[in-house]
Each structure stands twice: as C-alpha cells, then as structure tokens.
C-alpha cells in the first residue's frame, strides 16, 4: 500500500504491482538536480537527486522542482508515444443485446451524457493524495499535479533516501488517482463500460 487519496467523498487506497512497465521517461527541474522518471504506463515514479540539490533547489524549493520534473518526464513520455506506431484496429465487437433497437440507441446516448457529466465533475475536484505518514502531499486537479508539498520540517532533517522514498510513494498514488478518473466516471454506465473497458 503506497498511499491514500481523499477527494472529500471517499477514501481510496491503491495497491501497486511490483514492477513498472518497461519504458522509462526522464525529466528534471531547470537546475537539473531534481529528477523524476516515470514508466510507460505512468504508474510508477522514481525520484533522484544530483549532488548539490540542497544548496541550489533546497528543501523549500523541492515541491515545485518535483512538479517541474514530473512535467518534463510526462512530456518525454508523450514524445515517445507520439513517435511509436499505433496499434492496429481491433476486430469489431458488435453489441447484440436483446432489447429493442430504439432502447439500445437511447441507452448509448444516455450513457454518453452521464459519463460526460460524471467525468467533468470528477475532473473538477481538487484531490489531495498523501504518501506514508502524510510526509508528502500531492494535489491533483483536472488531471494535473498542481502541487507537491513535502512536510518541510520533516524534509529538512530527512535523508535523501527517505525523501525519494516518500516522494515516490506519494507520486505513485497521485498517478493512480489520475489514471482512475475515467474509469470512476463509468460507474452507472454499464453498457459504455463494457464497450470501453471490456466485460467485468
């Protein structure tokens, strides 16, 4: 268990597989001393520091530096994705429910409207995700990481290894939260869920 998220309506705990996906995408803050690496699936994050980061960025600047490094790593991931060949079209899976044609069509458009409303609402939420012991908080809004806030008192005495460990766990929880938003919006849209995600 890497962290918890609280969006005001429920508490969510996230479990992670032991291994990140194969690709690695790196970014750093403008000083180059705070670095973040995310995997192809954007589920795992690794944080590292170059020598001298405490003298340059320093603990007070650590949160914004991590945000910038995440943004740079995400951009690198996009560049790699944009250059990669896209998957070939899938075999058509036509829905043949037993309901009348008019009901099938009505349900499809109703699911679309419901999904759009729910996703827009979820996307507008400000969600704060915490790592272990609440040492690092990550704030998400609109699918973006808008703030990374380490507990500055703790961070000023923590070792680099402790800092990276807590930052990584908080970032992983945040990445999972961002990735889960579309699927959470599918609650109440079973037909659309089946077509977009597959059968349960």
């Amino acid at each position: 268990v890497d962290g918890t998220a609280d969006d005001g309506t429920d508490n969510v705990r996230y479990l992670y597989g032991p291994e990140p996906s194969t690709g690695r995408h790196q970014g750093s803050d403008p000083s180059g001393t705070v670095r973040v690496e995310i995997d192809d699936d954007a589920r795992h994050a690794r944080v590292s520091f170059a020598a001298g980061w405490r003298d340059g960025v320093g603990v007070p600047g650590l949160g914004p530096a991590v945000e910038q490094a995440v943004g740079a790593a995400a951009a690198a991931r996009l560049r790699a994705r944009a250059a990669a060949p896209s998957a070939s079209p899938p075999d058509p899976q036509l829905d043949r429910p037993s309901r009348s044609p008019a009901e099938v069509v009505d349900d499809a458009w109703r699911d679309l409207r419901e999904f759009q409303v729910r996703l827009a609402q979820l996307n507008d939420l400000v969600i704060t995700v915490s790592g272990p012991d609440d040492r690092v908080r990550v704030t998400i809004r609109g699918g973006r990481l808008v703030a990374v806030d380490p507990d500055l008192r703790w961070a000023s005495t923590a070792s680099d290894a402790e800092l990276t460990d807590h930052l990584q766990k908080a970032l992983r929880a945040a990445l999972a939260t961002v990735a889960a938003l579309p699927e959470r919006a599918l609650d109440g849209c079973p037909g659309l869920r089946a077509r977009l995600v597959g059968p349960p």
Partner: protein
Amino acid sequence: MSDDLHLPTVLGDLRGGIDQAAACLDTVASGVDAVLAGLPGTAPAATRVLRRRFDAGVGWVQRATATGGDPGVLRAAGSVWAVDIGNREVADVLTALADAITTFWVDVSVACATLAAALFAAAVAAAGPLGAADALGSALAAVATFGAVAGSARVALGAAAREAAARLGAVGLPRV
C-alpha cells in the same frame, strides 16, 4: 424486429455525436501539440495522423446521415405488398432489408456514442502533460475501433442490399 427507430432522431443524435467527437478530437490534438511544441525537434505528426484517421473513419458516416435510409418506410411498403397486393415474398424481402438498415443505424449509433465518450475522456486527459500521452493513444484506439465497427456495419448492410436486390430480381421485380 419491432419498436423501430425514429430515423430523424437517430440521424440528429448521430450528427450531434459526430460533432462532439470532432470537437473533442480538436481538444486532444491541441493539448498534445501544445506539449510537443515545448520539445525541440518534435513535429506534431502524431496529431496529423489522428485527424486523418478520424476524417477517414467518420466522413462517410457523416455523409450517410444526410441521406438516411428509413426502415419504417420499407416496412410500410412491405405491408402494402403483403396485405393489399398479396405478395408475401416481396414483403419479406423489404422487411429483411428494413431489419438490416435498422441494425446498421444501431451499430453506427452505438459506435459513435462510444467514440464520443472515449474522445471526451481523452480531451479531458489532454489538458495536462501527464495525461496527454494516454489521450493520444486512447484517441487513436477509439478512432480505430469506430472505423472497424462502422466499417463492419457498412459491409453487412451492403450484403443485405445485394441479397434483397437478387431476391427481388428473382420474383421479376426491378432491382431496388
């Protein structure tokens, strides 16, 4: 097949869904291009591919909504042939063709609603660099899926139309 579609509603919803999908596609492309623009030496070729595939997959559906193809009219004509003229064979052909047209519009409508949903989610994700990569990938996948499903529906309708023409020719009527 009972409870027929109200074709003007179906076509109106379909046009609206295509418009929504197109608007979301623009948002995805803009979001991705904005992130890529910050990276030296990166051309927005990926979004050009996305737009081209969308236009190819959706364009013919958009044109089809202009002419329609009303199963209700065929069923009514079939009823006239069965009841007033007493030719059951022609009525069956027209009813089968009406069923095929209904199935086509159902498949295309459901596929379009699914496409619009996927592109809406992609557009939301594309607002930030973190989600832009997934937005691009899921948009490409959604467009490919729509193209495959709608293309399959088009092939099935074409086969049904050819069969209807052959059956009508066999009973001595001009081909529809």
